[in-house]
């Protein structure tokens, strides 16, 4: 008891002390909502919380409710348009519960939404966990976001079993990727395949054919030759689409990379393991789970990226990426980038951050191949239930409802793992994008959503954010070296590979 009391006290006190010393001012943007009230309805009478069996119970209009806290912010879900949908989901669920209570204690479940800005969400959740005040549901959150909380998530298999929820329709390989040490500790929710987004207007201007949208299709180069859609083809094409202020492209003599006004390619929010996975399945951890390695395909990927910045000039360096020309860190939406390798969720942002709405027409193409194999990394989102949840079964009930809402996954830009995905795209994603991009949808035009659906099959077996020993520290250390690729000219790439392997081995060896 004393130990527990000390723990709580220490957690709160340490957080306060260190927050003060570090001056972070980690302000959370919270949007709690019972979601039960409508504007015209009288406000619900909520009495102070009590606890029963550890869980939180509140009385709303004289009826006791089990409170299930839903924490949003570790991944997607904090944009104003997303918050609107989340609040509606909560409101609808609570209304349903008021009509037909399904809480395990015979009471309705009251879903309560807690939205925290992504930049502070990790810190705030850790603080809540340390103070024994953890939320019940956390998500949507990706593999990396969850990995920062190893040991915190509950196994959802028994909860699903009790609820009669069947995972047999889900792809077993995906379930495996979503599991930690063989335990399914997250509700599989949405996938975000990666592909090439391309700006049609820039291709039209350069009189170049669009990239292929079907696996196996060739690309026709300006000289008429038909070539395989490989990363080398992308390099050649991207150089043709990289232009300086005098109108010369990167293949022409006299091209001035210091005055570049257009780039052929962008690897948005570049990340070393994702770049590696674009070229082939692999990881920094050898099969023994403790030895650091740098797969050959990944070396080729890093070299391709590095040369793309500093030798071939079709990728912006970090300074150029953060310039106003490239929308201060959001190059594809700037209208000055012809192609970008990105996940499905990026469809939200093609124009959203660009005040001038510079992109009028865009589409998606398949991922290029390397050594004859396509590897298309895929982001995976889950909803997790914390081990500390005192009403885990009720949380699962709420979670199953949340996961079934198509409008919610659409606002996150994800595709459900099961069901007719193409119909889903047309029903939700197209409906969302149509007002933003009237030029695309004019005269019956569409974005080719068969591309991401096809790309799902090419997701590498090892996830690009897969677990590593000493995860956060390892990720920090290779990322420090990875970022130098965008800032430093003249690096010896062999030394880079050695440095990464050495740093990772040190971290792996120090893993608890």
């Amino acid at each position, binding site marked *: 008891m004393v130990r527990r009391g000390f*723990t709580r006290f*220490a957690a709160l*006190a340490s957080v306060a002390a*260190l927050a003060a010393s570090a001056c*972070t001012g980690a302000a959370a943007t919270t949007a709690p909502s019972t979601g039960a009230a409508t504007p015209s309805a009288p406000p619900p009478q909520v009495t102070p919380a009590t606890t029963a069996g550890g869980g939180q119970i509140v009385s709303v209009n004289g009826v006791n409710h089990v409170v299930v806290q839903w924490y949003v912010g570790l991944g997607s879900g904090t944009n104003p348009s997303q918050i609107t949908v989340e609040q509606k989901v909560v409101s609808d669920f609570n209304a349903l519960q008021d009509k037909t209570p399904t809480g395990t204690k015979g009471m309705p479940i009251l879903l309560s939404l807690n939205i925290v800005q992504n930049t502070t969400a990790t810190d705030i959740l850790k603080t809540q966990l340390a103070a024994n005040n953890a939320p019940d549901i956390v998500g949507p959150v990706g593999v990396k976001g969850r990995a920062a909380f190893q040991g915190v998530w509950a196994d959802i298999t028994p909860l699903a079993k009790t609820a009669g929820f069947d995972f047999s329709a889900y792809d077993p390989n995906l379930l495996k990727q979503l599991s930690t040490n063989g335990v399914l500790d997250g509700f599989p929710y949405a996938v975000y395949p990666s592909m090439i987004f391309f700006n049609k207007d820039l291709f039209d201007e350069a009189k170049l054919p669009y990239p292929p949208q079907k696996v196996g299709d060739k690309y026709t180069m300006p000289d008429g030759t038909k070539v395989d859609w490989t990363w080398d083809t992308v390099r050649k094409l991207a150089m043709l689409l990289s232009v300086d202020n005098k109108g010369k492209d990167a293949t022409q003599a006299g091209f001035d990379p210091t005055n570049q006004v257009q780039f052929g390619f962008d690897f948005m929010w570049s990340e070393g393991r994702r770049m590696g996975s674009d070229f082939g399945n692999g990881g920094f951890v050898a099969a023994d789970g403790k030895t650091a390695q740098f797969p050959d395909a990944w070396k080729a990927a890093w070299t391709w990226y590095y040369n793309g910045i500093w030798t071939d000039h079709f990728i912006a360096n970090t300074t150029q990426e953060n310039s*106003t020309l490239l929308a201060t860190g959001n190059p594809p939406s700037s209208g000055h980038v012809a192609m970008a390798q990105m996940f499905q969720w990026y469809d939200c942002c093609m124009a959203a951050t660009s005040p001038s709405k510079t992109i009028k027409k865009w589409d998606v193409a398949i991922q290029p191949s390397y050594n004859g194999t396509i590897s298309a990394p895929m982001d995976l989102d889950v909803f997790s239930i914390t081990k500390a949840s005192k009403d885990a079964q009720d949380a699962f009930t709420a979670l199953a409802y949340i996961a079934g809402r198509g409008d919610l996954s659409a606002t996150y830009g994800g595709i459900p793992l099961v069901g007719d995905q193409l119909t889903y795209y047309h029903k939700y994603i197209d409906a969302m994008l149509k007002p933003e991009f009237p030029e695309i949808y004019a005269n019956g035009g569409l974005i080719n959503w068969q591309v991401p659906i096809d790309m799902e099959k090419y997701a590498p077996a090892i996830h690009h954010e897969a677990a590593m020993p000493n995860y956060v520290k390892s990720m920090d250390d290779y990322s420090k070296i990875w970022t130098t690729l965008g800032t430093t000219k003249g690096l010896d790439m062999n030394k880079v590979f050695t440095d990464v392997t050495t740093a990772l081995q040190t971290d792996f060896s120090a893993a608890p």
Partner: protein
Amino acid sequence: MVIVEDNESVHAPPPRRMSLARRETLMGLAFLSPWLIGLVVFTALPIVASLVLSFTDFNLLHPADFRFIGLDNYTRMWNELMNDGAAGKSLGVTARFALMSVPVTIVLALGVALLVNRKLLAGKPVFRTLFFMPVLIPLVASTIVWQGFLNGSTGWLGQILRSFGLPSPDWFNDPSWALPGLVLLGTWGIGNMTLIFLAGLQGVPTELYEAVKIDGGGPWARFRHVTLPMISPVLFYNILISIIGVSQYFTQAYVLDPGSNGNPGGSTYFYNLNLYKEGWSYNQMGFASALAWLMMLIVVVAALVLFRTSARWVFYAGGDR
């Protein structure tokens, strides 16, 4: 006739009345209590708790599993300091920044204060307001603005320098220029210090300047022999506050690299970034607490050195310290 004695009224002691001083003390404490409670709960207790935590392996994700580990955190810190580990490197970055930033901001703030204190300057209130205004802008916003301003490709400063045929550093992407870039960014916030200097300058008696003039002293003599000694207590205060400010430096570096790795190349990996990283990213709250205590110790030593040396260079007109 029976006489009934009213014992209660005769023998009961008179009601006790508090003295005025006591009542005023209690009233004062009552009014102060919100602040006092805040001080105890949000400052004093966390300070004590962080000291206790520094002797534990307290992990944010697994708070119930903590153990007292004696001086292990301090031993680790010592090893990191001696062997150029993360603590040593980050302390080095902070020290280098302090050596650049403190003199630059002090000299600049004093210079601006001297300028806006000039009798001949027209529109003084306007200039004073202009120099103070940046203080009102949140640090995060100003850092983002400066990121754009110093961008090596499209930043205004680079464009201005290039228009004169001068090379433009790639400030926040070049390890050699990142710290100078942050020093430059820091000059944006000299308004407070300028204001304090200005108050000090306005308190210097004019007859002293007249005396120097009569003795044939020029502007430099007036500054060296009158202004500087007379505002030395203000200078002392500003130096002390600057050092404390550097010891808390965090936000700007965090905004520049939200991954908190001190990019580019670890050149902006400040001590508090490392402390934050250990506490929140690696969940080593015990070790982070030990780091916090080392920084406090360093600041205390720096303050003591300043106070001890102040007798030689700080002049108090009334003779009081």
